[in-house]
């Protein structure tokens, strides 16, 4: 127990110190984690071999990340990128693997070794790349999307690789029956399942181990069917049930269960858990519970990914490096060069523009976390000799360590260069987030929603009553479940990308808190706030709202106007009377706001009371003199007949 606490403290302290420093220096959090890992591992030796085990757990962060990426990618969007996924991804893996294998053979390695190494190093690091892209806001750029397509293809490609690599160790089996190949798939796949889920459990729980080859396909299809079908038909009643309980932590528990459960299922049938959760994410991308899920999973993902990066840093073996540093640096440079060149050529072929070519080439030039898995897998299956593993592992780790530096190179050199020479084609970058976030979808928020939606604006609506969300969905109105006063949910709903925020929830104090929070997070966002009463207006003004709307004021004014008409007033006279009233009230509000003190009762505020009395008198006086003629008639002085005015001679009509 003490040991766990001690290592936990070491990891946390290292991260807490270095990540903020690197972030502040603009180097990105990934480099911070990696350096933290290097410091506590190889440099100071504070942590030891347990990093290997930790890494397996931490890799679950990748599973969660793919779930979150899936949530942001609607099925249609995934379908739209099929060309890119297969073309770009397929060519990248094939060309890179081929070139690296050729290089290895040129260095005198056996061809089976060369192919195994080529495949291993053709993969890139989903974890580092997606984290860095998101952090730097490049994930929506064309280059970022290209990178994502490739990473997704690689995640899929790992499965057949795990199936086929063992064949390299057993040349005599090549070309024999399907059955053996299928067994190879099964063995390989459940070993592949180690990546992510706990290694031991994954192996012992596999249900496809004992199956004959022909049964494997249907079982896999059934598992995928469970994920897709369950996501489409079972999650909504489940979430509604949980939402009704009103217990927040239950939602977190369900979200975790979902991700862990799918990972387990995928492991059982020998598929990649990351791919399974990605699929589940895509299925749930249209769900009204999407932002709630994002907000719940996000902290776990963040921590696990951080832990993963630390373990990569901590796993670097200095002894190996020092023994052969010149060779290793040379290989590292060659690896990055080969990968970057292939990517750049593909970027040109797939018609990416200027800086996006560089973004894709530089971001994916490293080897990835699958590399570690494939290396140990290859050694286990006697595809690669054990003595090669330390150097190759070190190469994978070092290339990952270099990635944040390549991102900085991109930002400092290419991003700037093209920013100066090429005008941005804004229209290409579709903003998937709504431009207006509406918190609260009751009687107030609904109207705002309907008007904005009808006017064709993208919006995100958050509402914490699940029945409401469901009913709105029946009307075809897209509303997301979630408590808008939770900062993490606001974040998941895209607060930082939003142009406008509408605080339309019911509770007075919560509205104020919400406005304060949003203003703190986004100094430039336009905030429209619902005010419950006059005093709330002052609070909201102090909290930083741009437009403050009293919820019942306008309707009460209209009621007053109707009442005047009911007494036989000419409709336009009634209109003028309330127009005057509204203007007077606004002036009063401004005067009173200056005298109002937060936290002090107005009854103890003589200045406030004096202004209130004075304004009330003015109003009575004006409304009374209305009926008489004269220039100081506030309501209709513009339309006073000329002869009633004192200066008749200067009057024109």
């Amino acid at each position: 127990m003490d040991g766990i606490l001690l290592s936990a403290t070491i990891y946390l302290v290292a991260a807490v110190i270095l990540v903020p420093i690197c972030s502040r220096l603009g180097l990105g959090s990934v480099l911070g984690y990696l350096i933290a890992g290097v410091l506590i591992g190889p440099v100071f030796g504070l942590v030891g071999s347990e990093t290997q085990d930790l890494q397996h757990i931490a890799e679950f962060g990748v599973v969660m990340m793919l779930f979150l990426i899936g949530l942001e990618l609607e099925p249609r969007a995934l379908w739209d990128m099929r060309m890119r996924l297969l073309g770009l991804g397929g060519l990248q893996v094939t060309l890179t693997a081929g070139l690296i294998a050729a290089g290895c053979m040129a260095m005198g390695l056996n061809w089976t070794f060369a192919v195994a190494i080529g495949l291993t190093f053709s993969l890139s690091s989903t974890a580092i790349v997606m984290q860095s892209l998101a952090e730097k806001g490049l994930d929506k750029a064309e280059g970022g999307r290209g990178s994502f397509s490739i990473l997704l293809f690689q995640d899929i490609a790992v499965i057949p690789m795990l199936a086929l690599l063992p064949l390299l160790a057993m040349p005599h089996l090549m070309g024999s029956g399907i059955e053996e190949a299928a067994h190879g798939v099964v063995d390989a796949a459940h070993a592949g399942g180690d990546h992510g889920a706990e290694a031991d459990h994954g192996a012992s729980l596999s249900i496809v181990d004992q199956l004959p080859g022909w049964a494997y396909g249907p079982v896999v299809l059934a598992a995928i069917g469970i994920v897709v079908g369950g996501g489409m038909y079972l999650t909504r009643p489940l979430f509604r049930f949980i939402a009704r309980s009103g217990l927040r932590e239950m939602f977190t528990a369900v979200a975790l269960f979902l991700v862990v459960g799918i990972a387990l299922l995928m492991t059982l049938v020998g598929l990649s858990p990351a791919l399974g959760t990605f699929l589940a994410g895509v299925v749930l991308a249209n769900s009204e519970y999407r932002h709630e899920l994002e907000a719940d999973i996000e902290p776990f993902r963040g921590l696990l990914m951080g832990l993963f990066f630390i373990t990569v840093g901590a796993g670097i073996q200095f002894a190996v490096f020092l023994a052969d540093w010149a060779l290793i640096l040379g290989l590292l440079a060659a690896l990055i060069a080969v990968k970057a060149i292939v990517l750049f050529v593909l970027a040109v072929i797939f018609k990416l523009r200027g800086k996006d070519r560089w973004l894709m080439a530089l971001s994916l030039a490293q080897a990835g976390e699958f590399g570690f898995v494939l290396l140990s897998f290859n050694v286990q299956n006697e595809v690669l000799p054990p003595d090669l593993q330390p150097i190759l592992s070190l190469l994978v780790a070092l290339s990952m360590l270099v990635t944040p530096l390549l991102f900085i190179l991109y930002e400092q050199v290419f991003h700037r260069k093209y920013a100066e020479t090429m005008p941005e084609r804004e229209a290409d970058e579709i903003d998937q987030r709504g431009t207006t976030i509406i918190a609260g979808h009751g009687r107030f928020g609904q109207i705002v929603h309907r008007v904005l939606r009808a006017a064709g604006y993208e919006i995100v609506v958050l509402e914490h009553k699940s029945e409401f969300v469901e009913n709105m969905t029946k009307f075809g109105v897209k509303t997301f479940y979630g408590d808008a006063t939770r900062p993490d949910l606001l974040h998941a709903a895209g607060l930082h990308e939003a142009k406008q925020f509408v605080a339309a929830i019911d509770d007075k104090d919560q509205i104020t808190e919400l406005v304060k929070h949003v203003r703190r997070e986004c100094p430039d966002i336009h905030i429209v706030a619902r005010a419950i009463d006059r005093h709330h207006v002052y609070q909201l003004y102090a909290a930083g709202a741009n437009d403050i709307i009293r919820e019942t004021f306008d309707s009460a004014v209209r009621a007053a106007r109707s009442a005047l008409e009911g007494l036989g007033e000419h409709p336009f006279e009634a209109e003028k009377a309330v127009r005057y009233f509204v203007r007077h009230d606004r002036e009063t509000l401004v005067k009173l706001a200056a005298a109002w003190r937060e936290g002090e009762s107005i009854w103890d505020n003589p200045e406030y009371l004096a202004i209130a009395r004075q304004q009330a008198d003015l109003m009575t006086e004006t409304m009374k003199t209305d009926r008489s003629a004269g220039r100081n008639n506030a309501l209709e002085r513009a339309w006073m007949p000329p002869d009633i005015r004192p200066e008749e001679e200067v009057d024109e009509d």
Partner: protein
Amino acid sequence: MSLLDDEIAPRRILILAAHPAPRRSVAGKAVRKAAREVDGVTFADLYAEYPRQDINADREQERAEAHDVIIFLHPFFWYSTPSIFKEWQDIVLEHGWAFGSSGKALAGKIFFSALTAGNPEESYFADGYNHFTLRQMLTPLEQTADYCGMVYLPPFAFFRAGHAEEGNRLNEHVAEWKGLLMALRDHKIDIETARQQPLLNGQLKMLTREA
């Protein structure tokens, strides 16, 4: 024409009236009241129907189509109508309805403005302090009517409206106003001659003599 009078349907008259401060105007009140008393006249108070000036184009077009004479009844504000009439024109006179190759809805309808002005009649001449005649001042309305294929008549005006209660002049004006409406309704007025006049005021006898 006189022989066929009985067989010709009476003209349907639409009066679009607007005064933003109706209770302020003595003369305006009288002409509005008189207009309502004439049979065959549809009277619409635009500020009452549209106190927020959100004029309904479909409804106004339908109403205009259902009449043969359209009259703007209003005080003379800054050598023009109250603003709601400008809004009415902007919104109701759509292309394809009021003008354009297929916009014939108003063609042939009679249009003029009946107004109450604060200044005396003699000020509305080249050597008066208003420098232009009333008809000249209203040329935007005249041209608009012409553009829509309507038959434009000169304005029917009550001057020095602020002194309406002097003598019998308001009563006389109101009587002529009612007579004008009835003559229009019953086809008793010489339209061609009326079009040539600077003003319709005081011309009723002359214009109806023939008939």
